[in-house]
């Protein structure tokens, strides 16, 4: 087994420490004040939050599954017209941050709030995840199995339930758990729509009082629920079926006159998920254009871009080191570091933000309330995303090339720099770009940790919405979709792949 260069080890280990320490610290602090934390939790309020959060997670999971699965099946396996256009539309809500979607609706309907509103917005925002996951699984099924099942006595609907569904179930389950994690950690949309879940309660407890024990205790409960779901997701992720062959011939079910019903359904989901919020925001922007403070908008845009760029480079730097370590040198420590980096995946941003508030205020006051605190928060939140995006291009560089380079007298370290990285660089750049765009859209950790005078598109949008100044918030929302959402969707390799396969 080859040993990784020291520099890679140092960078990798420090990234992991940066990511894990604050969360561990939050736990330790709570353990110290265990009695008080317990007293905080043993209140009816906690039960209420648990109920509210659970209900929303469950409801959105079910509806997102139904919507996403239907979209995937109709666009890949039926004769519905304009299938590839509908597939693009099904993925498009990914370009709209959920709090932007919430803003679009609440600015249109004054009474749009509470459970139903949160459920609707989050279903529309998360069903693309199910759509993409199930599509990827559906296109890998050999449709000859459907035909065999037909000749063995199954009708069309039974083929769907007994042959198609069991084959996509692992992918669907993994997608739904992803949706559950998303809803559990969601803050912006839920807070705007005033539905009481853990994330909103944590934020309010933090903002509303000097005693932060309550916020920390609630954060810990949320963390435990999250870990439970992550554990479930890991368990089910292993169950992906070994597909005998990718992309065999694909036969489509003739919908006949049902085609129109299907088209109506797909169209209305697109209208609700993309059309309504975007049109609403557009109308508000036009209405408020006379009083638009352009310098303020440009200042926020610059603030966002600077922060996102800085964070993207910072996270990319660590991710490259860890990816090189994990992919090119398969040492045990490297594997551990990679696993640990993944562990922060799907931690609710509110919990990470709060952990960093505690850690920063008590241990590292010299960077507390500076941009660096935010950058570290983004590192914790998005290192897994960066790793996922950067590992693939690095793994795809043929090992033979490294061997050839070394046989020609170039030492291992220089081979990495002269051969591996240059070949992988397009993928790495795309990965860093994707992470930067994700940073651009981040809301809760940004709100908790922002330096007082720093403003971004997301924080400006938030401040204006809290004042119910929709015409002021709308341009920021639209700008977020244009500069962050759409480019992110284009860079998203999973989305690109699924969409091209629907066409195939």
């Amino acid at each position, binding site marked *: 087994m080859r040993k990784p260069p020291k520099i890679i080890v140092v960078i990798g280990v420090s990234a992991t420490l940066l990511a894990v320490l604050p969360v561990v610290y939050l736990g330790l602090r709570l353990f110290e004040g265990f009695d008080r934390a317990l007293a905080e939790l043993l209140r009816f309020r906690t039960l209420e939050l648990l109920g509210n959060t659970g209900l929303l997670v469950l409801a959105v999971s079910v509806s997102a599954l139904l919507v996403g699965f239907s979209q995937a099946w109709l666009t890949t396996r039926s004769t519905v017209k304009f299938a590839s256009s509908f597939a693009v539309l099904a993925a498009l809500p990914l370009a709209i941050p959920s709090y932007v979607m919430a803003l679009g609706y609440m600015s249109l309907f004054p009474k749009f709030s509470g459970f139903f509103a949160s459920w609707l917005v989050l279903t529309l925002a998360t069903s693309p995840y199910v759509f993409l996951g199930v599509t990827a699984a559906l296109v890998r099924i050999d449709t000859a*199995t459907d035909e*065999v099942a037909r*000749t*063995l006595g199954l009708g069309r609907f039974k083929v769907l339930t007994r042959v198609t569904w069991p*084959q996509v179930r692992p992918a669907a389950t993994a997608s739904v758990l992803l949706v559950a994690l998303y809803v559990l950690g969601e803050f912006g949309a839920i807070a705007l729509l005033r539905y009481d879940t853990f994330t909103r309660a944590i934020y309010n407890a933090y903002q509303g009082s000097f005693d932060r024990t309550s916020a920390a205790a609630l954060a810990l409960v949320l963390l435990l629920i999250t870990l439970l779901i992550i554990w479930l997701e890991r368990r089910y992720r292993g169950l992906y079926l070994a597909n005998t062959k990718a992309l065999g011939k694909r036969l489509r079910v003739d919908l006949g006159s049902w085609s129109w019903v299907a088209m109506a359904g797909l169209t209305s989901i697109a209208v609700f998920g993309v059309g309504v919020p975007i049109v609403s925001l557009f109308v508000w922007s036009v209405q408020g254009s006379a009083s638009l403070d352009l310098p303020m908008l440009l200042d926020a845009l610059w603030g966002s871009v600077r922060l996102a760029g800085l964070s993207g480079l910072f996270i990319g730097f660590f991710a490259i080191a860890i990816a090189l370590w994990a992919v090119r040198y398969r040492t045990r420590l490297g594997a551990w570091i990679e696993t640990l980096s993944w562990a922060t995946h799907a931690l609710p941003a509110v919990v990470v933000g709060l952990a960093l508030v505690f850690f920063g205020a008590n241990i590292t006051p010299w960077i507390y309330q500076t941009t660096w605190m935010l950058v570290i928060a983004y590192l914790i939140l998005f290192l897994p995303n960066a790793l996922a995006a950067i590992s693939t291009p690095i793994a795809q560089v043929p090992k033979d090339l490294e061997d050839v380079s070394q046989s020609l007298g170039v030492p291992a370290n220089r081979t990495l720099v002269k051969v591996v990285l240059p070949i992988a660089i397009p993928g790495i750049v795309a990965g860093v770009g994707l992470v930067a765009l994700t940073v651009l859209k981040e809301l809760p950790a940004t709100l908790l940790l922002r330096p007082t005078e720093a403003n971004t598109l997301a924080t400006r949008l938030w401040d204006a919405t809290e004042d119910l100044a929709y015409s002021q918030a709308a341009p920021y929302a639209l700008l977020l979709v244009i500069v962050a959402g759409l480019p992110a969707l284009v860079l998203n390799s999973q989305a690109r792949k699924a969409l091209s396969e629907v066409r195939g």
Partner: protein
Amino acid sequence: MATLNLRGVKKSFGDFEVLSGVDLLVEDQELVAVLGASGSGKSTLLRLIAGFEKPTAGTIELAGKEISSVTKVLVPEKRNIGIVPQDAALFPHLSVSQNIGFGLAGWSSKDKAARVAELLEIVELTEFADARPEKLSGGQAQRVALARALAPRPAIVLMDEPFSALDAELRTRLRLDVKAILKKEGATAILVTHDQEEALSLADRVAVLRNGQIVQVGSPTEIYNSPVDIGIATFLGDSVLIDGEVKNGKVLTRLGALNPLNKVTEGQVGRVAIRGENFYLLPNPKGEGEVVGQVFFGHDAVVEVVTRGVKIRARSNGPFAPEVGMKVSVWVRGSVNFYPV
């Protein structure tokens, strides 16, 4: 009794006619191979019989009942047919036994278990009963697919190039297995293939499909020995075509007067098709032929000879084949098919 009866079946996709009037009878317990090049419409024919496509003309009857016509197509699940796809297409989420028992929905659990056990034994995979499909080799997967199709005792089994994904050695073995399994089950079956060796070695009867029509049906020996036209003759085996004219009941060619197999009329002009194995080469320093090429296969060899201005390819015993540059005498053994132009 005819199990399957196709009458004037046509199928077009848009303006493109894939099948232009297919007539085919398959008798009970018979194995018929439909032999055709790729694009000849073989798979479409199977999909029509299975009920996945609707004919643009003609009818299909199965066990005396009309199952397809221009106006009415019985759904696949009500046809009582079994299909074995090219790549087995086992249900990846079910075990081998569950795959085989999939079509036995109405059966009691006791009968079902007995039937599955019986088939596992017939396809010699009893020890794989609980295995997942991804654990099987290509040949094993095909045997499971066949068992799954046979389990509900279908009126007919349709096999779509079932051996094409396998390597050569396995293919030969599995062919014999499949034939034995089908006979043991007393099943009626259609096999479509582009491989003439497969069709000839496996089938009770071979139907040659060309340009959307069945151009010849017969036993493998009939098809091989008496192709009705020159196209089939060259498709079925490596043949050399030589011009000739009928004189005194024989065909006069540059290689001498040959005995025609088929009926000829005096004075006809045309071509004879001579197969590689009909040539006999004798090394002879004064011979008129010269060996210009040789492809060695081990058990036999193909020897290219130029003689009297004609280039022929002769099959020869591998180890004793004449070598390049040698002079040989050439004879044509047996009778040949004559095709007037």
